[in-house]
């Protein structure tokens, strides 16, 4: 179920990237796309009835039914990459704002 909405969320992000002209809004759209993608990746690893992939004193053997741990590891990576890119994009946004006095890409004149 969640999977459908994850894809929809990615599409919303793409829609934002296509329509928005504001630097901050573009970065927000990029983040929405990434959230959708991350939820989708986790949903690919979900097993109905599975438990979280951590051995504890209750779930103490590897013979139980676990959800797929690999997509979770990938999403950890993906989230951290996302924050790196967002930080860099915001640094660009601030430089653009200092240079042109606006966040709107259309109002930025010259090279």
């Amino acid at each position: 179920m969640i999977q459908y909405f994850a894809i929809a969320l990615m599409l919303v992000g793409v829609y934002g990237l296509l329509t928005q002209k504001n630097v901050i809004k573009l970065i927000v759209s990029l983040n929405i796309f990434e959230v959708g993608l991350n939820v989708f990746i986790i949903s690919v690893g979900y097993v109905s009835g599975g438990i979280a992939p951590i051995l504890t004193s209750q779930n103490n053997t590897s013979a139980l039914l676990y959800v797929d741990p690999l997509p979770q590891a990938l999403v950890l990576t993906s989230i951290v990459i996302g924050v790196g890119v967002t930080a860099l994009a915001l640094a660009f946004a601030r430089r653009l704002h200092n240079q042109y006095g606006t966040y709107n890409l259309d109002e930025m004149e010259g090279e």
Partner: protein
Amino acid sequence: MSLMDILELVLGIAMVVLGVVAVNAKKKITSVILLSALSMLAVVAFVIMRAPDVAITEAVIGSGLVTGLFVFTLFTKKNEGEDA
């Protein structure tokens, strides 16, 4: 439909609606706060899908730090006066 299915449905719809509103919001700060809320819902989705590690990380980074960075970019003395 079990209770879980209904929860997932509501969660999914809320996420998409938040996404659409965040993209189309007039004020930039509204977008940012809605993005933070969206991340929080994603955390719930991660918990439902049995991914506690990811949920913790997303809660701290996605809805905490990233929002902080956005706010620092938007709310500084220099940008005052413009509709944030």
